[in-house]
């Protein structure tokens, strides 16, 4: 997030898109609901499903799946045409405005209405509302990023914020809500194929030299590695022979599961380190038991870049070991000593090679976490990014064209499928599935369909239905719900028994390599 969570309560307008906030980030949703209910903040919700936040929205736009660039460009079109943009900000702080203006020219509300299904008047009203606010914040989540055009979607939202000068102040910003507890930290720590910690590029020779010196090693690779979405398929081609998986369960969470399953069988050697015998662990040659969060010391970095302490509360079961200790044990056996007495020593080391964390210590975050960048010991942390300028000088406005989703509905597969989460379950359920109460509230997979579509296909609430895509099929219970929009069905991805990801498309965004979970074409038939 460019801004903090609490910041949201200071916004005059909040635009939420691609985030079922009340189910996926419930505590953040309370900030939004409080602002709307008690502080006069206006909410623009852009989401095809009738999610809970629709009850709080002043403007609710329901675009067809995969048409985000189109409606965002159309808002920008209206804002530029009606001269509602922040001319000073655009002039002083951005570049590329003319190209953007040219690009959005054709995205008139009428034209975009045809693509997105949003009435033109709603687009105009939303544009005026967003641009008219002194401070407007954008919140988005996987509904924006999990598309072949995910990177474009995010850049388009940034365009929208920048032309309205909605950056660098409390109550503004472009704020991705991170799904998993430490996604932010895993990225910050260089758990990515192209960067070391703090996004320092592996292709930059000066950086490589600096890290080599700091680690006292030589011969670090300066060739970017493969992202997970290419690593697993690389088992097929034989390019990857061995995979060491730490705390992940790709066998439920990855797109196009049937293909993943074959891939995992193809590795010469696979190690899985986890707290449970997950679906993925079953496939491993060696399984290593690790600690869960309640048994560990360390830090997590939340979605607002706040580095917070994790503290050991209980003893781990049996012979389980801390994740870093297991890795260090393998490292030592491969001839590279990693000796640390505790997590605190690791943290001290990582701050030496991570400029944005350099000023953070366990003592400083004992009571409350700090937001990175925090470059020095006396730096107060940075709750709001870009308050003075952008790291690369001027903010770049990107002229982005609309590309339809990779897979379109047709006669054979007439419905769109989108996937997502439900409140009571988490990810692949390896944790939530072990609290009976959560299972009682959300016991099994389901496919949510609109009343009109249910009637069209002759299906009833509670029916067991077969859902098929070009890649696979599953059987699940039908839930007829006002939440669903006509033409699109929704399935939560948590459940291994009826894994939505047997259906999803593994087509990737060309830049971020994020798979297109949110749109694929399916057909339904009764399974009774």
């Amino acid at each position, binding site marked *: 997030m460019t801004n903090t969570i609490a910041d949201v309560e200071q916004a005059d307008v909040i635009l939420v898109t691609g985030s079922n906030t009340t189910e996926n*980030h*419930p505590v953040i949703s309370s900030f939004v609901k409080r602002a709307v209910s008690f502080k006069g903040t206006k909410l623009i919700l852009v989401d095809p499903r009738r999610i809970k936040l629709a009850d709080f929205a002043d403007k609710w736009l329901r675009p067809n799946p995969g048409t985000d660039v189109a409606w965002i460009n159309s808002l920008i079109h209206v804002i530029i045409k009606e001269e509602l943009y922040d001319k000073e900000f655009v002039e002083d702080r951005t570049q590329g405005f003319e190209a953007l203006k040219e690009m959005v020219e054709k995205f008139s509300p009428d034209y975009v209405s045809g693509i997105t299904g949003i009435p033109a008047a709603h687009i105009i009203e939303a544009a005026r509302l967003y641009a008219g606010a002194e401070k407007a914040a954008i919140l988005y989540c996987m509904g924006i990023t999990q598309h072949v055009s995910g990177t474009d979607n995010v850049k388009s939202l940034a365009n929208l914020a920048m032309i309205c000068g909605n950056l660098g102040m409390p109550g503004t910003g472009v704020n991705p809500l991170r799904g998993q507890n430490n996604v932010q930290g895993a990225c910050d720590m260089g758990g990515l194929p192209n960067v070391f910690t703090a996004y320092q590029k592996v292709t930059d020779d000066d950086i490589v030299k600096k890290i080599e010196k700091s680690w006292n090693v030589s011969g670090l690779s300066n*060739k970017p590695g493969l992202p997970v979405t290419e690593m697993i398929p690389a088992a097929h081609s034989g390019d990857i022979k061995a995979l060491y998986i*730490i705390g992940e369960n790709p066998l439920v969470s990855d797109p196009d599961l049937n293909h993943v399953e074959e891939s995992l069988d193809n590795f010469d050697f696979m190690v899985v380190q986890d707290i449970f015998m997950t679906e993925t662990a079953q496939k491993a040659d060696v399984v290593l038991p690790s600690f869960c969060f309640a048994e560990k010391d360390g830090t*997590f970095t939340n979605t607002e870049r706040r580095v917070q302490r994790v503290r050991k509360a*209980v003893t781990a079961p049996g012979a389980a070991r801390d994740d870093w200790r297991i890795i260090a044990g393998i490292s030592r056996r491969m001839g590279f000593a990693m000796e640390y007495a505790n997590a605190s020593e690791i943290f001290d080391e990582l701050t030496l090679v991570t400029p944005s964390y350099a000023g953070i210590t366990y003592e400083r975050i004992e009571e409350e976490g700090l937001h990175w960048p925090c470059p020095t010991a006396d730096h107060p942390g940075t709750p709001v990014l870009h308050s003075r300028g952008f790291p690369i000088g001027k903010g770049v406005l990107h002229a982005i064209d609309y590309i339809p989703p990779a897979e379109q509905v047709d006669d054979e597969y007439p419905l769109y499928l989108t996937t997502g989460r439900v409140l009571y379950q988490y990810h692949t359920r390896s944790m939530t599935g072990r609290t009976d109460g959560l299972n*009682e509230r959300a016991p099994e997979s389901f496919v949510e369909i609109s009343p009109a579509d249910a009637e069209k296909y002759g299906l009833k609430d509670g029916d067991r239905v077969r859902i098929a895509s070009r890649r696979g099929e599953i059987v699940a219970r039908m839930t007829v719900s006002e939440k669903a929009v006509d033409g699109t069905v929704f399935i939560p991805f948590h459940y291994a028994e009826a894994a939505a990801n047997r259906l999803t498309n593994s087509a990737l965004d060309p830049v971020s390599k994020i798979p297109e979970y949110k749109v694929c074409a399916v057909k339904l038939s009764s399974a009774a």
Partner: protein
Amino acid sequence: MTENQVTINGNRFSFEPGETILDVARRNSIDIPTLCHLKGAAPTGACRVCVVEVENARNLLPACATPAQAGMVIHTESPAVVTSRKMTIELLLASGNHNCAVRESDDTGSFSDFQLRVQQYDHSDRLCPVWGDCRLQDLAYRYQVSGRAFPATEVKYPLETVNPFIVRDFSRCILCGRCVQACNEVQVNNAINFGYRGKDSKIVAAGDRPLKDSDCVFCGECVQACPVGALVEKDAKYRWRPWEEEKVRTTCSYCGVGCQIELHVKDDKVVKVTGAEGVAPNYGSLCVKGRFGFKFINSPERLTSPMIKENGEFRRAEWDEALDLVARRLSEIKDTYDPDSLGVLTSARITNEDNYIAQKFTRAVLKTNNIDHCARL
């Protein structure tokens, strides 16, 4: 100078316009007891426990709802205040099954009759489940009163136990309204409110339905807000007493909000989770996963030993054997092919320290940049 000043118990304090008497007192560490007051919600003045004496005012005034005004002379523990508070507390104690031994007897029967009635209602032979962790009990002790001064009110509504997380015990509800504010003004889930009138008053979900059939999302904000034993975590009820536990502050391990939580630990097991009050980012709020989804920690299905697969079957192994095998195989593959034939998937679930070590190992030892995690997924 005297413009924005008040006198509390003989000392002068300045205040900011808009501050209540309670705000000024709290800021200056003067302890005015409260029951219904909930931080972040509009004060209601409902319970009358926080009353203070303001010179020249006709009545005692609730400190939580009375704005400080220049020149006010306030007494927080004067005889009139103490008499009023005692009666308020006695009435509350008499109003339900407050069997924490502060009640000795009453007009309708003996101590043991009362206890037996409560036990029948509770389906338990123990004293109140929040014994030792109750604002009302604390106040009764502080002002040395019991419930015997007033006849016990009859208990109207049965326990509600039909949802998996929260026990609603209407026999101990003092109708302070904190849960209603927590639900409507803090979480804004709008699931519960006051229902019925007068002596039939009850906190209800819409249509007086059980929580499980209402808009309730089981965030548990109301449980954390309830000052007495009327809302209790089902799992913690009668399994845990506050003096047996140790609290450890940590960060929730589910979503990216990173809520600050307190793990309540008894006998090396997590028995309950609450939101850490007063600190960012969540200021005490949690969701159902963070508050109630902790059973996995102590699950019997946890992996407890390294496992090696032989002929398609897993067998237990010692650490040395497992790690030797992993190191040997990774080295062999690296040497036979090349470093880029190895890959590591690190995790958005583990700590920064773990992730740092995972990428350092991948880069410095395996000598490849084939490392990623499921951030995208």
